[in-house]
């Protein structure tokens, strides 16, 4: 990069945000679009508490009454466990509201930013202090 001009600095910094490894596995931007945030509410159908990322699935009923199943990615269970969460913090059948970023491929896949249990209002699986381990 020594041969490059300073003009490349700005795009290089932009790429830093986009290309940086996410949670030691893959780059966020390789899969998800930070410009496509969405909010989903649905019933948890399945939880995969496994590395390299925890995935859970929810049935979301659309305005037309059609039910679509969405897959949502979170951090690794190792990180979630160290932040105080367990595989029981959310359970199949729970109704949750998820703030997420849509996959670039347009399928029903997203990266979950926050997960809120409808029954209690508790924000689960977050690293911030807005959530408390069950």
């Amino acid at each position, binding site marked *: *990069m*020594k*041969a*490059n*001009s*300073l003009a*490349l*600095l700005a795009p*290089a*910094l932009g*790429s*830093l*945000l*986009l*290309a*940086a*490894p*996410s*949670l*030691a*596995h*893959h*780059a*966020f*931007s*390789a*899969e998800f679009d*930070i410009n496509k945030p969405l909010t989903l509410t649905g019933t948890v159908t399945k939880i*995969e508490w*496994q*590395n*390299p*990322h925890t*995935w859970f699935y929810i049935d979301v009923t659309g305005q037309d009454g059609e039910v679509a199943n969405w897959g949502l*990615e979170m*951090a*690794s269970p*190792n*990180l979630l*466990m*160290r*932040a*105080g969460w*367990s595989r029981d913090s959310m359970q199949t059948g729970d109704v949750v509201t998820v703030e997420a*970023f849509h*996959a*670039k*491929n347009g*399928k029903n*896949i997203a*990266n979950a*930013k926050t997960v809120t249990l409808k029954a209690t209002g508790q924000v689960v699986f*977050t*690293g*911030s*202090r807005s959530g408390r*381990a069950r």
Partner: protein
Amino acid sequence: MNALRAVAAAALFVASGAAAQWERVANRNVPLGATGEPNLEAPAPRTADGKPDLSGVWLPESDLELEVSVEHMPLPRYFVNVVADLAPEDVPMQPWAAELFEERLAKGGTDSPLAYCKPTGVPMVVTAPLPYKIVQTPELIVILYEENTEFRQIFLDGRKTVEDPLPRWMGYSTGRWDGDTLIVETTGFTDQSWLDGMGHPHTDRLRVTERYRRAKVRELFVDVTIDDPGAYTAPISYTVKSNLLADEDLLEYFCTENEKDIEHYE
């Protein structure tokens, strides 16, 4: 890089020990203070042969100034970028390496070895944001990395670095003590790994020198020097700070267990 905005942090949350669902076991190597709590400010313990005892579970410190993730966890500075301290025009990269680096950036990380669950490799694993455990004996130091469940052997029995090893992701490491500093030399690398998350490349001529320094119980510093005349015109150096996790232990981490991101790439 200093212009990057700060990001809300949770890595310290990880390191500070929130409640977990398994029982914590205190590291018996950690001295206790008058109140029975770990005395993290005490001088580093020493082994029977008088060397600083590096044993323990460690976590590389994240850089809260780096905004690199929309998720909840900031990352260690040099895990993202080994030349984070240099102005772009000062990075001593050879033209072919700079071209390859730009290609990797343009692909947005879709060809990162980690995305395909390949090993993290040295030196990147030294600053990976998951705990690692040092097991120290007089003639052999073993480092167990939670990251991809990798391990290293560092031979202190006087052997020389092998001249022509099978290319390895972790390299072949020999070590020696210089006073209270453990100096580790590693060669014999494959050229398949990336030096960092951004994709700085290297060749099989890579030589990594690490200097492990532990003055206090609390922290471990590793001065890393990357010397690869195949890709760079000068060595690159940085220091990784790790904090002791006094009552933590390693967890299992197999990336292949449930990898499903690649199939979602565009």
